[in-house]
């Protein structure tokens, strides 16, 4: 019998233990010692067929990172996930969340069939219905609403959608005639981008070339805990530390608590919560006063460093004036709590070791930095000229050209789309925002600009995210019909009338677009890896089916009723040649890059079917060539330069009128010497005052996102829950980290149960004395405290967001935590 190597590898991995192959009732039958009964049963079992085993490519969707996975499929079951070695983002690696993916797939608390509400809203009583019935109900309601000429009264709240998923939602809403497609992801995945957009113009996003940086100054960046694409960040970090023969990268980290990033940093600078932007300005002042900034870059490529004269002849303050006048060292020291000598030393080092990066919070979780503080942090990168350099800030390359023919719309749709959006995005105060989730609660409640008749929840769970729980519940109660696509009984789904459970990522077609940390566009493609263990359906396919059932013109939204065909059509342009190629082995990549950059290789049109098969086998497509010197792309500002004084911001305020303008300006930081109109366009870092009586609430609250749960929508995964607070030996409940001396002062001990009470609310937590906590600042983990959603998440810990209050950011309207004060009360 002759066997090929490939066959052998295939069969090598197909193995089985006794027991498992017998079926799944293994655990009632113990070996030997447990007695002859089990033995007798065992002997009756017979295996009849060889088990086939495969490794199939797919895409991890536990977070937005876009990693490629290989699924070990054993017979009919998925038994392990590992990284796809060809994938440019994760190169064969996976993080903890990625590894836990099977606990999402095989989660016993997934909704098994479509459900219709049986009791009162929010009561949690359901009756199973068939897919036909459920789809029929949705289709009829939508048809009726559209017939009455009110298609805009349909709203869909989504998660951080990308790629084909986004296309399907957009096309569905467009053909139906509603402008109300709202990403309900408070500040998630935006990270530093809004700030960078003000200073560098709108681009396809920005990235930090961590791998090639020599020095990283992190301003509470949560780099190692809360990054939007953790695996590629970790890979880059490994290389940053030890990837180069000499020149080990150095990391300095400023944060109120000793986090994982702080622990891994070479130096941890404890800093008062929310004052990172001010520290950045303190560092900027040293660079400017000591003339340690990159004068060449600042003169050649920057605008608004020095004072400048506007078109009316008025002198406007530049960055230098801002720094010198508003951030004298004494003030910086006082506001940040960082000693003067540390600020000076940090600044000098930042200027000396190049390339050096200043990174603010860029993760999906923490939201208390604010756009102006982030601008202040980013200004440091321009001061040392580290823009579009290896080891610097890079603007992402243009995305892959994926497109479907435009949606043909009828008059009803056009009318609906011309209405203002539910969240106010794209108009007046939020003219530059694409989504303003923070406005949704109020507008729903006040029926502004009109009431919503049907609400669809597609990957969003606003009731957990919202800081206005009660108001949102009230708002939801007013909506006649709520349809949820959640695969779990999450908080908001409890208020739905109909649940059409989605499948999870291994069970569906996926076409996802993202970027590497070096700005290369990536297109992920995967087919379903295995049959769904539950009777869920891919929401994208459900939307296709609903559109089809409504007949023309809504049915025209999609050129096909199969999601696979849509993916194929979208990818057609990739076969036309130009740049980019399917994922390949790293050596191949390197070679291609060399050839292309030196002009030796020109891509020509390829056969689409071959490309399609290639993409499916390798997991996707990317463009490995990046042009650093495309300044027009990297600095797409009105001045074509890096703007310390943002002309984009100035235009924005200039376009607002009367009260709108006043209200927008009110949200910008107040300065001592400069005018409000200038402050609103400069990196005017500030530290918001914590609300609450200082005597009554003596402690400051510093919330942080639990690293292991960061970016995850469905946290009902026991592997992850078991390792949440490993640094303080606490899991499965909310804890409060407090400095031992502060604990002594307020009379609590390690292990005590306390109520943490702020003016906004209270949560129960376990005291964990922690040397890494700043005195008089308590740290609380965010990510626990779901009230529903499964056995390993509902009732596990408390939702710390209850303690916090928020304000809306200017420009984006994103919700931002206000610093809070609290006290501990023994239970």
């Amino acid at each position, binding site marked *: 019998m002759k066997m090929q190597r490939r066959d052998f590898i295939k069969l090598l991995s197909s*193995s089985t233990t*006794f027991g498992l192959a017998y079926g799944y009732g293994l655990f009632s039958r113990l070996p*030997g010692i*447990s007695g002859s009964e089990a033995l007798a049963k065992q002997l009756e079992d017979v295996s009849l067929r060889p088990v086939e085993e495969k490794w199939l490519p797919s895409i991890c969707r536990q977070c937005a990172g876009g990693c490629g996975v290989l699924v070990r499929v054993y017979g009919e079951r998925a038994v392990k996930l590992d990284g796809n070695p060809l994938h440019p983002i994760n190169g064969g690696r996976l993080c903890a969340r990625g590894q836990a993916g099977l606990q999402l797939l095989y989660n016993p608390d997934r909704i098994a069939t479509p459900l219709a509400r049986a009791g009162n809203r929010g009561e949690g009583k359901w009756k199973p219905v068939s897919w036909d019935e459920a789809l029929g109900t949705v289709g009829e309601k939508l048809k009726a609403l559209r017939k009455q000429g009110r298609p805009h009264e349909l709203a869909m709240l989504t998660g951080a959608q990308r790629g084909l998923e986004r296309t399907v939602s957009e096309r569905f809403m467009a053909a139906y005639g509603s402008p109300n497609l709202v990403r309900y992801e408070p500040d998630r995945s935006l990270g530093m981008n809004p700030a960078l957009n003000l200073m560098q113009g709108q681009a396809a996003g920005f990235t930090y070339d961590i791998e090639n940086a020599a020095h990283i100054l992190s301003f509470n960046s949560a780099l190692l805990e809360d990054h939007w694409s953790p695996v590629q960040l970790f890979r880059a970090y490994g290389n940053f530390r030890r990837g180069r023969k000499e020149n080990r990268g150095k990391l300095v980290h400023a944060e109120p608590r000793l986090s994982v990033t702080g622990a891994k940093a070479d130096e941890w600078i404890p800093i008062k919560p929310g004052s990172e932007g001010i520290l950045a300005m303190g560092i900027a002042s040293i660079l400017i006063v000591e003339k340690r900034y990159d004068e060449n870059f600042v003169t050649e490529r920057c605008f608004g460093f020095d004072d400048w004269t506007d078109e009316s002849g008025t002198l406007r303050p530049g960055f230098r004036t801002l720094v010198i006048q508003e951030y004298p060292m004494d003030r910086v020291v006082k506001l940040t709590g960082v000693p003067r000598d540390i600020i000076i030393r940090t600044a000098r080092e930042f200027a000396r070791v190049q390339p050096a990066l200043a990174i603010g919070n860029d993760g999906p979780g923490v939201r208390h930095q604010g756009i102006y503080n982030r601008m202040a942090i980013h200004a440091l990168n321009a001061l040392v000229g580290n823009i579009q350099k290896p080891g610097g800030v890079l603007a992402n390359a243009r995305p892959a050209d994926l497109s479907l023919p435009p949606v043909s719309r009828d008059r009803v749709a056009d009318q609906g789309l011309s209405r203002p959006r539910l969240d106010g995005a794209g108009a007046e105060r939020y003219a530059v925002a694409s989504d303003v989730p923070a406005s949704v609660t109020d507008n729903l409640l006040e029926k502004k600009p009109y009431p919503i008749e049907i609400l669809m929840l597609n990957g969003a769970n606003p009731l957990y995210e919202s800081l206005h729980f009660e108001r949102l519940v009230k708002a939801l109660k007013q909506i006649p019909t709520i349809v949820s696509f959640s695969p779990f009984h999450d908080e908001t789904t409890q208020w739905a009338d109909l649940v059409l459970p989605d499948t999870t990522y291994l069970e569906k077609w996926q076409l996802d677009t993202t970027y590497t940390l070096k700005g290369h566009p990536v297109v992920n493609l995967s087919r379903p890896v295995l049959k769904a263990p539950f009777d869920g359906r891919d929401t994208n396919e459900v939307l296709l089916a609903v559109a089809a059932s409504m007949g023309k013109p809504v049915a025209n939204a999609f050129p096909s009723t199969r999601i696979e065909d849509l993916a194929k059509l979208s990818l057609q342009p990739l076969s036309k040649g130009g740049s980019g190629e399917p994922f390949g082995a790293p050596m191949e990549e390197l070679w291609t890059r060399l050839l292309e950059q030196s002009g030796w290789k020109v891509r020509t049109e390829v056969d689409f079917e071959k490309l399609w098969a290639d993409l499916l086998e390798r997991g996707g497509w990317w463009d490995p060539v990046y042009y650093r010197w495309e300044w027009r792309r990297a600095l797409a500002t009105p001045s074509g330069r890096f703007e310390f004084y943002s002309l984009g911001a100035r235009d924005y305020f200039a376009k607002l009128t009367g009260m709108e303008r006043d209200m927008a300006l009110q949200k910008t930081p107040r300065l001592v010497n400069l005018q409000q109109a200038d402050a609103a366009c400069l990196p005017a870092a500030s530290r918001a005052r914590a609300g609450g009586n200082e005597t009554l609430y003596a402690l400051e609250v510093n919330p942080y996102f639990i690293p292991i749960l960061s970016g995850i929508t469905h946290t009902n995964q026991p592997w992850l829950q078991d390792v949440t607070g490993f640094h303080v030996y606490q899991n499965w409940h909310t804890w409060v980290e407090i400095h031992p001396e502060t604990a002594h002062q307020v009379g609590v001990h390690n292990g005590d149960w306390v109520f943490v009470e702020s003016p906004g609310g209270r949560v129960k937590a376990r005291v964990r004395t922690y040397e890494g906590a700043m005195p008089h600042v308590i740290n609380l983990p965010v990510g626990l405290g779901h009230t529903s959603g499964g056995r390993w998440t509902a009732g596990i810990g408390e939702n710390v967001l209850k303690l916090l209050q928020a304000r809306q950011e200017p420009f984006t309207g994103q919700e931002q935590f206000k610093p809070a004060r609290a006290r501990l009360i023994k239970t």
Partner: protein
Amino acid sequence: MKKEPPITMRLFALSLSAAFALVCSGSASAVDQPIAYNHYKHTQELELECTMCHTGVSTQIRATLPSAEICISCHEEPVTDSAEEEKIRQYYAQNEEIPWKRLFQVPEHVFFSHRRHVTVAGLDCAKCHGNMATQKKPPKKAPMAISMKACMSCHRKLQAQIDCVSCHR
């Protein structure tokens, strides 16, 4: 639900289990197969390979017993006038699997791989299964006992792994 024996009981059971581990093969009681299969006829007279019916032998952990589908591929039309042969078609017609009973068995905590022994090491089936291939009637018990002692002596002789973790984990 069966309750777990307490630790003390299990200490007591240790001696039993040790004995058990040594004589870990075969069934205690006599085995009656659903069909009076004739190994001799298939392997000796017709000279069929073992892998023809035990399809997992060279590629899988387990050798596997033939499913009705495999049998029917030759026996769709009667080859003999045996009533035993007719049973195959009955099972197949009723869409049932043939309820073969296993003769050779190692305990759950023993990881034995046919592929490793047959394909990688190139061992003959008879090494562990004795004269199974020449049996004219289904034997009531395994023609050759599989014991840890036998495994170990062979492993020693062939200088294969004798670390505990290689087979027990």
